[in-house]
C-alpha cells in the first residue's frame, strides 16, 4: 500500500512541475527562446504573492490575482524592452542575456528579502487531506494537480480556438510570413511572455503555499521545468504534464528509498528518457 501512496504523491507532485514548465514551453514554442531566468521569475512571483499576503493582509488567492497583472506587465516589458532586441538566428545572445538576468534577479531578491526561507500562509488548508479509501491525498497537492490540468486546457483553448492563438501559431511557424499577414511578431512575442508570466504566477502561488522557498532555489525549478518539457517532447503541453509526472514519481520513489536520493532520482529519470527517446515521449515540434 505504501508504494501506491508514493506513486500517487509523485503524480500529484508532477502537477506542480507541469506548472513550472508550461511557461517555459510556451515561450520556447512561439519564439524558440529558452529563458534561463524562468526559475528566478517563479521565485519573484512567489515573493510578490507573499507581500500581498503579509503587507496587504490579502488571502493568497486574492494576492495571486493582484500579482497576475503585475507579472504580465513585467513579462511584456521584459520581452519588449530586452529580449526582442536579442532574438535572432544566433542563440548565444538571448541565452547570455537571460543568464545574466537570472543571476541579477537571484541576488537582487537575496538583498531585498534575505536568505531566510519563507512560506505563503494558507491556514487550515495546509494540512488538510482527503481519504480516498486506498490512499490519503493532501488537498493542496490535489488542487495543484487540478490547476495544472485546468491551465493546460485553458492554454490549449487559447492556442487552437482564438485569434490570438492563431497569431501565436502563425508566428511560431514563420514569423516573416506572419508579418506579411498583418501580425507584428514583436508584439505577439511580448504578449506571449506576458501570458507565460501569468502561468508563472500560478506556479509560484502553489510553490509558496506547499513548501518553503528562498531566493536561491530558482535555478533548480528551472531545471525541473526544463526536464519536464524535454521528457514530454517539444510543443505538447500534455506531454509536459507527463514529463512532470515522471520527474515527480521518480523523486518521490527516490526519496522513499533514501531522502538524499530524491533530486538525483528525478535527474536520472530524465537522463534515462533522453537515452531511450532523445526527442521526448510525445514530440510534436521539430527542433
Amino acid at each position, binding site marked *: 500500500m505504501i508504494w501506491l501512496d508514493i506513486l500517487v504523491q509523485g503524480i500529484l507532485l508532477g502537477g506542480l512541475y507541469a506548472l513550472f514548465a508550461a511557461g517555459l514551453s510556451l515561450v*520556447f514554442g512561439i519564439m*524558440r*527562446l*529558452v529563458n*534561463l531566468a524562468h526559475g528566478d521569475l517563479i521565485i519573484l512571483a512567489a515573493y510578490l504573492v507573499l507581500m500581498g499576503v503579509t503587507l496587504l493582509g490579502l488571502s493568497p488567492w486574492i494576492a495571486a490575482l493582484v500579482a497576475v497583472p503585475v507579472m504580465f506587465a513585467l513579462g511584456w516589458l521584459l520581452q519588449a524592452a*530586452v529580449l526582442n*532586441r*536579442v532574438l535572432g538566428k544566433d*542563440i*548565444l*545572445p*538571448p*541565452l*547570455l*542575456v537571460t*543568464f*545574466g*538576468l*537570472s*543571476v*541579477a*534577479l*537571484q*541576488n*537582487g531578491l*537575496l*538583498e531585498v528579502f534575505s536568505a531566510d526561507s519563507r512560506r505563503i500562509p494558507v491556514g487550515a488548508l495546509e494540512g488538510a487531506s482527503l481519504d480516498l479509501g486506498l490512499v490519503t491525498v493532501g488537498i493542496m497537492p490535489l488542487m495543484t494537480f487540478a490547476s495544472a490540468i485546468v491551465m493546460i486546457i485553458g492554454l490549449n483553448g487559447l492556442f487552437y480556438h482564438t485569434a490570438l492563438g492563431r497569431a501565436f501559431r502563425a508566428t511560431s511557424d514563420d514569423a516573416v510570413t506572419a508579418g506579411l499577414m498583418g501580425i507584428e511578431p514583436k508584439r505577439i512575442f511580448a504578449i506571449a511572455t506576458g501570458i507565460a508570466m501569468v502561468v508563472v504566477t500560478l506556479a509560484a502561488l502553489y510553490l509558496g503555499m506547499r513548501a518553503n522557498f528562498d531566493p536561491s532555489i530558482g*535555478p*533548480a525549478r*528551472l*531545471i525541473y521545468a*526544463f*526536464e519536464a518539457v*524535454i521528457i514530454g517532447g517539444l510543443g505538447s503541453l500534455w506531454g509536459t504534464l507527463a514529463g512532470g509526472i515522471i520527474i515527480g514519481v521518480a523523486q518521490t520513489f527516490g526519496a522513499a528509498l533514501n531522502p*538524499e536520493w530524491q*533530486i*538525483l532520482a528525478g*535527474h*536520472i529519470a*530524465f*537522463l534515462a528518457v*533522453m*537515452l531511450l527517446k*532523445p526527442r521526448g515521449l510525445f514530440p510534436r515540434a521539430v*527542433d
Partner: protein
Amino acid sequence: MYRMTTHTRAGAVTAISAPIFIVAALALPAVASRGVVQDLFFILTMLTLAQIWNLLAGYGGLVSVGQQAFVGIGAYAMFAGVILLGWNPVLAIPLGGLAALVLAVPTAFFAFRLQGAYFAIGTWVIAEVTRLLVAQWKALGGGTGTSLPREATSSILGTDAIRTLFGLREAAARDVLAYWLALALVVAVTGGIYWLLRSRLGLALAAVRDNVDAAQSVGVDTGRLRWAVFLIAAAATGLTGALVFLQTARISPGAAFAVTDWTANVIFIVVIGGIGTIEGPILGVLVFFALRSALADYGSWYLMTLGLIAVVVMLFAPKGLWGLIASRNGLHLFPARRRLTGPKIEGGI
C-alpha cells in the same frame, strides 16, 4: 603572388612582449606580498576558465552552463589521489584533468542530443547529477567535504626549494607554487587555443561558426569537431579545478560544483571582455577583478551588478569591450584570421 597570412603588426608586438611578460610574472613572487600572489592566482585561474569557455561558446558554439562539473570532478579527483592513493598533491593534479576527460564522454553523449539552447541546460543537469553523486562519496567527506591532510600539504613537491629561494614560510611558499602552476596553465591554455585557432582545426571551427551547411559541404566533420573541442575544454577545466582546490586545500561539493563561481562569473568575464576573441577574456578578467575589489563590501549587490552589466553589454556591445576597441582601430593582438595579401587590384570590379 597572393599569399594567405595571419600576420599583423600588433601580432608581432605580442610575440615579442609575451615572453617578457611571462618572465616578469615568474619573477614577481620575489618582490610581491603574499596577498598579491593570491590575488594573481585567482586572476590567472579565472582567466584560464574564461579562455576555455570562450573556446567552447565563442568558437565552438557550445554554450555550456555546466563547466562546474569539470572543475568539481577535477578537484575531487586530485583530493582522491592525495587522500585515498597517497600521491603528492602536485602529481595528483593531472588526475583532475583525466577525471574531467572521462566525465566529458558521457556528458557529451547526452548533451549533444540536445539542440542549441537546450544544450546549455542539459550540461547544467549533468553538473547537478555529478555534484549529487560526489556528495555521496563518504570517503571524501560526503556532503560536508574534507581538507587535504596536514602531511600532504606540508610536503608538496617544490615548496622546500621555494622556501629557501625566497625565505618564505610554508603556507606562503605553497601559494607561490600554486601561482607558478597557474601561470604555466594559463600560458599553456591561451597558447594552445591560439595555436588551435591557427591550425586546420581552427579553420574548420571558424567555418562552422560562420556557416554550418557551407562548412559541411566542403568536408568539415562538424560532429567530430564538437567532440574534440568539448573534450579538450573539459580536460583543461579539470586541471584548473584541481589547481584551485590545491591552493585552498579544502573542498566541499557546494564549493567545487558552484555554478556561480565556475560558470556564471566565467561567462560574465567572457561576455564583458568580448566573446570570440583571445583578447576579450584577458580584458574581461581585469574588469571583473576591479569590480570585485570595488564592490567587495556590498554582498549580493556585487553579483547583481555583474549580471546587469553583462546584460547591458550583450544588448549594446555584443562583441564586448574588446570588440569596441578592435572595431575602432582594428587591433588584433592574437591574430587568427586568415587574410589574402598581395598586389592591390587596380580599377576593375
